[in-house]
C-alpha cells in the first residue's frame, strides 16, 4: 500500500507535505450484536487550502472516519483498531483526550449535518461561539463577543450585532448552519471537517451555504474535508475525492479524473446511476443489490457480491489500493477495466 504522501491530482506542486494524512485507519465498534468494522483501513491526505470530498453510501463509514479524526468516537463501543492520523506530522491517535481538547476547535474544526440539533438550544448563539474563543484564544468576554460578531458577519448573517443574542430556535436552518460555520472557523483552524453540511437543507439554501464555504476557503485558506453522498456537491466543491464503500476506500482521485475516468466498478456505477439534467435516458443504470450489512461483510473485495465482473479472486482476496497513475488510486484487481471487450 502506498505509504508515501499522496500527490496532487490536478497538477499542483507535490512538494508541500499534506496538512492531514490518514493512514490505514481502522475504527471498529464492539456491540452486543458483534463487531462492526465500520472503518477498516482508510487512507487519504488533505492539503492546505484544498477540499477533499469523501463520498459513499449511507453507512459506509464516512462519519466514523471524520469523528475518528476528531477523536470523538465514543469508546466504548468504539475501538481504535489501528492506523495513524497525522496532523502536521503528529499522530492524533496517540494523543490523550485532554491534548485533543486543544486541537479540536483550534486546529481542526467540524460542522455537522443537522443544523437544527447541532446547536445547544438553551444558549444564545453568541455564547456558543464565544466559548471556543475564550478556551483557545484566551480572549476576554468582550473581545470574544466582538470576534463572534465579526464571524457572524463573515458568514453573511444580516445584522450580526443583534443576531449574536438570538437563540438557535429563533433562526432558520440555513442561518443555523451559518452559525455553525462561524463557530467552527472562529479560531481559524487549519482544517474544517464538514459532515454532510447541506443534506438537511433546501437546494436554494444549500447553494448559498456551499457558495459561502468556497468563498471562505478562498479567503482563509482553510483545508476542508467535505463528507457527502451527493456527487453534484462533490463535483462542485472538491479538489480531490475519496470514494468509500463498506468501510474501505475503493477509489481516490482528483475530481476531474474521478468524474471523467472512474475506474472502480462501484464508482462507475455510482456516477452513472444518477440521473442528469442534461441527458435523456429511458432507464437509469443501477448497481444491483444493496450495501452489505457491516456485520455480514463479504470475504475478499467487499463490492464483489454486487460487481458484475467479480471472479473467485475478488471473492477471496481483498484488493489493495493501487496507484493507477499519478494521484489516481483504485482498489480493484481488474482496474483498469479492459475496454476492448466492449
Amino acid at each position, binding site marked *: 500500500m502506498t505509504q508515501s504522501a499522496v500527490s496532487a491530482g490536478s497538477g499542483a506542486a507535490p512538494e508541500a507535505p499534506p496538512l492531514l494524512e490518514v493512514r490505514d485507519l481502522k475504527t471498529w465498534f464492539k456491540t452486543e450484536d458483534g463487531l462492526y468494522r465500520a472503518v477498516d483501513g482508510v487512507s487519504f491526505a488533505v492539503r492546505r487550502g484544498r477540499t477533499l470530498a469523501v463520498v459513499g453510501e449511507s453507512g459506509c463509514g464516512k462519519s466514523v472516519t471524520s469523528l475518528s479524526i*476528531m477523536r*470523538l468516537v465514543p469508546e*466504548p463501543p468504539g475501538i481504535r483498531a489501528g492506523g495513524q492520523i497525522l496532523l502536521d506530522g503528529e499522530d492524533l491517535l496517540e494523543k490523550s*483526550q485532554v491534548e*485533543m*481538547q*486543544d*486541537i*479540536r*476547535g*483550534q486546529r481542526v*474544526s*467540524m460542522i*455537522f449535518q*443537522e443544523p437544527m*440539533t*447541532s*446547536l*445547544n*438550544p*438553551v444558549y444564545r448563539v453568541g455564547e*456558543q461561539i464565544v*466559548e*471556543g474563543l475564550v*478556551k*483557545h484564544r484566551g480572549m476576554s468576554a468582550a473581545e470574544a463577543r466582538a470576534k463572534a460578531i465579526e464571524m457572524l458577519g463573515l458568514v453573511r448573517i444580516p445584522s450580526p450585532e443583534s443576531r449574536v443574542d438570538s*437563540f438557535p*430556535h*429563533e433562526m432558520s436552518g440555513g442561518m443555523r448552519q451559518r452559525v*455553525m460555520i462561524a*463557530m*467552527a472557523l472562529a479560531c481559524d483552524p487549519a482544517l474544517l471537517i464538514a459532515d454532510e453540511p447541506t443534506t438537511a437543507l433546501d437546494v436554494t439554501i444549500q447553494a448559498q451555504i456551499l457558495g459561502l464555504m468556497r468563498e471562505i476557503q478562498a479567503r482563509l485558506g482553510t483545508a476542508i474535508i467535505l463528507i457527502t453522498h451527493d456527487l453534484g456537491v462533490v463535483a462542485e466543491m472538491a479538489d480531490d475525492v475519496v470514494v468509500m464503500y463498506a468501510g474501505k476506500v475503493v477509489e481516490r482521485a482528483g475530481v476531474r479524473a474521478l468524474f471523467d475516468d472512474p475506474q472502480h466498478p462501484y464508482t462507475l456505477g455510482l456516477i452513472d446511476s444518477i440521473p442528469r439534467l442534461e441527458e435523456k435516458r429511458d432507464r437509469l443504470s443501477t448497481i444491483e443489490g444493496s450495501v452489505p450489512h457491516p456485520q455480514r461483510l463479504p470475504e475478499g473485495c467487499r463490492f464483489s457480491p454486487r460487481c458484475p465482473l467479480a471472479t473467485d479472486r475478488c471473492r477471496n482476496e481483498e484488493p489493495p489500493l493501487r496507484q493507477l497513475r499519478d494521484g489516481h488510486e483504485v482498489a480493484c484487481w481488474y482496474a483498469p477495466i479492459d475496454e476492448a471487450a466492449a
Partner: protein
Amino acid sequence: MAQHVLYRLLLAVPVLFGVLLLGFLLLQLVPGDPATVIAGPMAPPAVIEEIRRELGLDKPVIVQFFLYLVRVLQGDLGHSLISNTSVIEELAAAVGPTVELMVACLVWSVPLGIAMGTVAAVRQGGLLDRVIMAFSVAGVSMPIFFIGLLLMQYFGFVWQLLPFIGRGGPLWSIDGLRHIVLPAVSLGLIFIGPVARMTRTAVLEVLRADHVRTARAKGLREKTVVLKHALRNALIPVVTLVGLQAGYLLGGAVVTESIYSWPGVGRLAVGAILSSDFPLAQGAIMVLALAFIIINLIVDVLYAVLDPRVQRS
C-alpha cells in the same frame, strides 16, 4: 415568560375546580353521615335532623356543591366536625410544617439525586454507575414506612441520636432542626432514587445529542461539556419529571408525617378522613391538590427559565 406563567395559572383553574368537585363528590359518597358524627352516639334522631338542616345536608347535592363553592371562594372551609375549629385555621397551622418538611426533603435529595444521576450517566456502564443505579432502584423499591421505621429504630431508638416525635419548633432553632432530620431524610431517601434515575436517563440522552458533539468538537473540557452543555439541557426533562413526581412525594409525605407524628397537612388529611371529619378532609385534600398545582407551577416557571424555547410561545 410572565405570560407563560400567567397562562399556566389560568390552566390551573379548571384543574382546581375539578379537584374541588372530585373531593366534594368523593366525600358525598362516604357512608358515614356527618350529622350523626357531630351529634354523637347517643343523640336522638330529632337532634340529628336538626344538625342536618343546619349543615345544609338536606339540600340536593348540586346545591350543596354550589354552596360549598361559594363558601370556599369566600375563604370559608367550614368547621371541623371533630374539634369544631375552623378548617382554615387548622390547615393554616398544618401547612407550615408540611412546607418545611418538603423543603427540607427537596433541599438535599434533589441536588444529590441530580449529582448521582449525572455521575452515573457520565460513567455509564462503570462500577460507579452500577452502584448508584443499584442504590436508586433499591430506593424506589423500598416501602417508605420501612425506611422511616428503620431510621427511627436505629437513629432514634437504639442510638438515641435524634428525636423522632413531632416537630421541635421553627427550622432555624436547634430543636427544630434536630426534629426534622429524620422525617426529611426518610422522605428524601425515597425521592433520591427517582431523581437519580431520571437524571441519568436525561443526561444520557443529552450526551448523545448532536449539540453535545458540537461542544466537544469545539475542544471544550469534558467538565464544561457535561456541566454546561449536557446537564443544563437534561435539567429540563428532570424538572418536568420532578413535577410529575410531586404526587409521589406528597403521598410519601403523608406516610412520613404519620410515622413521625409530624403536624402537617398529610397527617391532618389522614386523620380527618379516618374520622369522617368531612370539612377538614375536603380542606386538606384541597390543600394537597393545591400543593401539587403549585409545585407544578414552580416547575413550569423553572422550565421557562431553563428552556428559552418556551419563553416566546
